[in-house]
């Protein structure tokens, strides 16, 4: 859920009790005011009646409450002394409404010409059910208009305010540390966004510096390893020739030599990987992949026949693509070698060249490989100790460099598909 909708949601929920509570307070406050003014009005009627009485003594004969809105009843002295002025609510039948409606009643007393009277005044009162109905209607309208205003304002204002944030967010998913593209921050006066922009810029700059440092560290370390490796290998080779060794000793030394060879290959692969990532293969030329595949498979023919694997190459189209030649060789060599090394004996490794793609497939273990791990560094799928675990990682790095899609799939056979970008 968007932040914008979140705040709106909370506001919508919070406003319901708020408005309800407010409605109660408002209702009683208003009712209180109405009673107050009605009672004042009734008081005023009494004053008016007393003023008119000397001139119009027939007022004392007014008994019909419904006709005169007041009635005057003579009372005894005792009753007069005990009587206290009071206001009360009651219902009265209204002819126009044909229903009992609430009325306000004011009962008071007076002494006139030594006689005692009780006077009753009435006035029509506000209809509470109508008042509540109206109040609820208006409050719902108020609530809805408040919500609409909030949503519209939020959308307009927050969108504008959050612009630096959204601009940042649209760039971050595309950020790749290995590519040297900058994140462009939008200037803003909002403190929080300023801080965010600053932090992101610093974070990216620092990460990028570390990344480059590490990249060059791997490259430098690999370089530095070459000489001691060369010395060890050569010393062992000289030693093997020099000395009269028993077969067992000879084989032990030879296996050390083999391990040093593996170390050398690993080192070379690491160096190659960091060189690809450090963009040290610039020189590009159109590569004829049909021809390249023919050359590479010829080199692998001996390995394949040794494993009784039949190499089947099907050129369905001519595929040309512009890239670095050494990298093209490494890419296809690694994939073809992978298919042969992991291919099962007495079976076929198939290479099909299409207009814009190459498919290399081999029979092997009957279970699909983990697509998440297969192209990762040092994730060895097999237990084969001679493999460096970098071959497919290198192939992936090369294909990514040229926007070639390298995909793995499994259906009876293990398939490695290379999809070349069109017009490349």
């Amino acid at each position, binding site marked *: 859920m968007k932040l914008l909708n979140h705040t709106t949601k909370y506001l919508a929920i919070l406003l319901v009790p708020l408005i309800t509570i407010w409605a109660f307070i408002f209702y009683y406050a208003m009712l209180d005011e109405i009673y107050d003014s009605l009672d004042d009005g009734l008081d005023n009627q009494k004053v008016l009646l007393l003023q008119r009485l000397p001139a119009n003594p027939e007022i004392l004969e007014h008994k019909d409450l419904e006709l005169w809105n007041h009635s005057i009843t003579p009372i005894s002295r005792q009753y007069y002394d005990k009587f206290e002025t009071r206001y009360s609510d009651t219902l009265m039948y209204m002819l126009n409404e044909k229903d009992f409606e609430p009325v306000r009643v004011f009962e008071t007393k007076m002494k006139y010409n030594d006689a005692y009277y009780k006077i009753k005044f009435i006035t029509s009162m506000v209809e509470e059910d109508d008042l509540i109905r109206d109040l609820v209607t208006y409050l719902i309208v108020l609530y809805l208009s408040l919500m609409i205003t909030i949503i519209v304002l939020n959308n307009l204002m927050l969108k504008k305010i959050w612009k630096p944030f959204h601009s940042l967010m649209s760039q971050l998913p595309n950020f790749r540390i290995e590519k040297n593209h900058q994140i462009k921050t939008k200037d803003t006066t909002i403190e929080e966004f300023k801080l965010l922009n600053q932090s992101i810029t610093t974070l990216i700059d620092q990460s990028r510096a570390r990344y480059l440092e590490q990249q060059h560290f791997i490259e430098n370390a690999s370089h530095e390893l070459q000489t001691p490796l*060369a*010395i060890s290998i050569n010393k062992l080779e000289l030693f093997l020739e020099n000395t009269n060794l028993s077969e067992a000793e000879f084989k032990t030394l030879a296996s050390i030599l083999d391990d040093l060879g593996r170390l050398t290959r690993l080192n070379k692969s690491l160096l190659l990987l960091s060189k690809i990532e450090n963009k040290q293969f610039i020189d590009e030329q159109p590569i004829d992949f049909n021809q390249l595949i023919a050359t590479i498979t010829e080199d692998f023919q001996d390995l394949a026949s*040794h494993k009784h694997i039949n190499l089947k190459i099907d050129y369905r189209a001519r595929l040309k693509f512009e890239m670095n030649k050494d990298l093209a060789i490494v890419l296809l060599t690694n994939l073809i070698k992978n298919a042969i090394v992991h291919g099962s004996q007495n079976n076929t490794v198939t290479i099909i060249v299409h207009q814009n793609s190459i498919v290399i497939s081999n029979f092997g273990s009957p279970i699909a490989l983990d697509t998440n791990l297969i192209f990762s560094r040092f994730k060895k799928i097999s237990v084969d100790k001679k493999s460096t675990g970098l071959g497919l990682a290198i192939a992936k790095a090369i294909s990514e460099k040229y926007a070639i899609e390298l995909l793995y799939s499994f259906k009876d056979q293990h398939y490695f598909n290379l999809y070349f970008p069109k017009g490349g």
Partner: protein
Amino acid sequence: MKLLIIEDEPEMLENMRQTLERQHYIVETATDYSAALHKIGVYDYDCILLDITLPDGNGLELLKTLKASGKDEGVIIVSAKDSLDDKLAGLNLGADDYLPKPFHMSELHARVKAVLRRRHFDGNPHISIGNVSIFPETREVMVENQPLVLNRKEYDILMYLITNKKRLVTKTALAEHVWGDHIDQADSFDFIYSQIKNLRKKLEHATITIEAVYGVGYKLEVIS
């Protein structure tokens, strides 16, 4: 044949010196730029092995000086950097070959021999061993003056073993030389065996033989 090794790493230098001396070359050494500059100014060599990263200068500068002074020594650049730029720069400056570290001793012999051969045969390229003659220019092989038909790999294997005759050549070194660097991660080098078997069959009437050494490598011997 007189060789000069310019290499600042003493152990590397010692290894190279030992193995080349065993091939009966006269080997001189220089461990830095100024010593090397002095030596190439005074003496003539048949082949110079040149490390490009020297403590007091760049090997490529030495190569420039050498070529500028009109000397035509064979030069093999030996480098730990294995960088394409250095390789291209070196070859453009007139180096004969580029050998990235680490390398096998047998590979070093092969490269040195190839350079010397190109410089000294002068149109009459021809190697004889036992009753076998090899013509590297045309890649032809004769056994007692009868042509022997070899495929590309068989020829490369034979040539490599002859270059390193009577010395142990490991399977790894042989595979990397004949099948190229990219074969090097193959799960085993046993596939070499079938080519060796074919080669042995073809060399039935030759007075040279390819011996297996404890399953580690091969050695070419001359039958006397």
